[in-house]
């Protein structure tokens, strides 16, 4: 019924009453969704913090976390946010080769994060059902890892779609790029909170 067409195409029909223009609020919708998504994490964090405050860890329960690997993970994600931003700058300048290069680096950092996270999972001394804190740890990091996985896939799609000349994402149609970038920064921010709550507190 309704279809979205770029402004340029509809310029000649401006006086047509049946064509109405409004601002692009797709990003607004995405922000609302990210708030909802953030509330899911907030629920998990609240549960974890309450467990920590109320349920004492058993004497024979093993729940130890090492810092080096997650710190590396934090650096990986923070750098990837920066590289994504960098790719956006080149997209604005229509330098798609450079934009693609930085997107590829971002995607590689995301995948590196996932590999590093997997490595941590395999080296930890506890499993999912060992005790309450182990379960919460895996649930929280797993749910976040799911977000990183989805983000990495979307970055790869964007990378493929920014190719010249046949890609569909460019300076004129950059909503997909902006959306994935916003999502990626969100996942990054969640990780920082998660890192502080789970590893540092």
């Amino acid at each position, binding site marked *: *019924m*309704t279809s979205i067409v770029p402004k340029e195409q509809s310029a000649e029909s401006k006086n047509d009453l049946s064509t109405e223009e409004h601002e692009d609020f797709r990003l607004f*919708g995405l922000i609302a969704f990210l708030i909802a998504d953030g509330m899911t994490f907030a*629920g998990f964090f609240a*549960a974890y913090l309450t467990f920590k405050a109320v349920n004492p860890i058993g004497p024979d329960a093993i729940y130890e976390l090492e810092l080096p690997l997650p710190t590396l993970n934090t650096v990986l994600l923070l750098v990837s946010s920066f590289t994504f931003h960098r790719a956006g700058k080149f997209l604005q300048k229509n330098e798609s080769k450079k934009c693609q290069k930085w997107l590829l680096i971002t995607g590689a950092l995301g995948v590196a994060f996932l590999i590093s996270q997997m490595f941590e999972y395999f080296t930890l001394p506890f499993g999912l059902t060992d005790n*309450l804190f182990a379960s919460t740890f895996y649930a929280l990091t797993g749910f976040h890892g799911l977000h990183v996985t989805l983000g990495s896939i979307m970055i790869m799609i964007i990378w493929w779609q920014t190719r010249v000349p046949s890609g569909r994402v460019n300076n004129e149609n950059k909503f997909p790029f902006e959306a994935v970038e916003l999502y990626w920064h969100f996942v990054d921010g969640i990780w920082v909170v998660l890192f502080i709550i789970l590893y540092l507190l």
Partner: protein
Amino acid sequence: MTISIKPTNTPPEKLQPSGWLKYLSFSLDHKVIGIQYLVCGFLFYLIGGSLAGAIRIELASPLSDFMPREVYNQVLTLHGTIMIFLWIVPVVNGAFGNYLIPFYVGARDMAFPRLNAVAFWLIPPSGLMLITSYFINGAAQSGWTAYPPLSITTPAAGQIIWILSVLLLGGSSIFGGINFIATILKLRRPGLKLMQLPMYCWAMLGTSILVVLSTPVLAGTLILLSFDIVAHTGFFNPSLGGNVIVYQHLFWFYSHPAVYIMVLPAFGLVSEILPIHSRKPLFGYATMVFSIMGIVVLGLVVWAHHMFTSGTPPWMRLFFTIATAFIAVPTGIKFFNWVATLWGGKISLNAAMLFSCGFIINFVLGGITGVALAQVPFDVHVHDTYFVVAHFHYIVYGGSVFVIFSSIYHWFPKITGKMLNENLGRFHFIITFIGFNLCFAPQHWLGLNGMPRRVAEYDPQFQLINEISSIGALLMALSTLPFLWNILQSILYGDDAGDNPWNALTPEWLTSSPPPVENWEGEAPLVLEPYGYGKKDSNKTQGKLK
């Protein structure tokens, strides 16, 4: 970047089924989606109502003789879940929201039409999944609250299907909420200010904020619960070191706002219906807006009043008692505003008006018991008794469902272009009102005398009152018949409604009935005074644009 909506660009004919088939298609028209929500919701209402009937038949006698106890547990779980997640929430939000909000903001469709259709089409499969779980291995037995450890120890298959179904419905609700927020805040016709919108827009804005903030927490909680059931983790399992209270906190963080998700849109709908049928402006528009937003804020910080008997510490009880009592203030403001709207008006006692007045009466009774339940000493006495059941049904049936019927009587002429039979409608109201009060008012007494809820058997001394309550339920069931007959009869042979049978000023009446695909033939009308009844010049601007 700007986006143009080009309505002339319709898909090829073949992809766009016409006639009644469009209601079974992935249509993007907000009006079609609204009707899909309404009809789908009503079918689930009939199923949930039959389950309620089964409960009342069982409770007509003290012994568990009509069905086995496990089946009784499944029936009450399905009744609660279906009525909340598949009837009231989708209908007061999805059905009327989708149908009316684009009109009210002067738009041709919702902000995200495809997301809108996705949100609707998540509902039928999850509802069917929930119902079929009964036939597979027994449905969930732990009530609509699914409290662990009960939900962990009852048969797993039904509980997992219940969780998946509620997750899908929650997703649908979130997508709908995002859509409403974007539509109301961003898609308003130029020249239309927020404070000029009809009240239902404000109610839906508040509701959608609650949906977006609280539903994800329920989703996260249910994911953790499913881990407990499937992977044998111990989040909420005390025998594995878990904590059931955390589940209750997270669950009620959604499920208390869920009450407002069910009832705030009903407030909005009543605020539309009362001024039109009493020919007076809505009393206290600004106070109405602020009290809706007050309810939204307070609604997020009162959840633990459901947990006064869960070992909640005294300081927490005090805080949540006070916060809950405060909600009575904005709610009371709204109540007095409605009464003041009626006061001295030229009231036409048609079916829509009668159901709205029935809502006001029932809701004030439910509100009074709500304030009583917020007081810890009283709550401890009646917790988990039939008093709570009575209070809850006064809010959701006497409140929301009465408003749904009122809205159907009010907007049926717009949706179909035919008038409903008013006398049958009044008859429907009278049986519903008597049946409802006969069914639920005695349950206050049962609860005060200690009859526990969710149990198939009870002390024989309660039998007489339970029989009275069951007769009320029978009347409620029978009241559906004149309603259905009325709908069927009117669609086939009803009088022509014309564009504006109620002489209303809100924008949905300023187009043909039923409205064309893009809502208006020409430009959308600019309605600056949606409640300007009884004013001399209020029709002038709007008449020109019509």
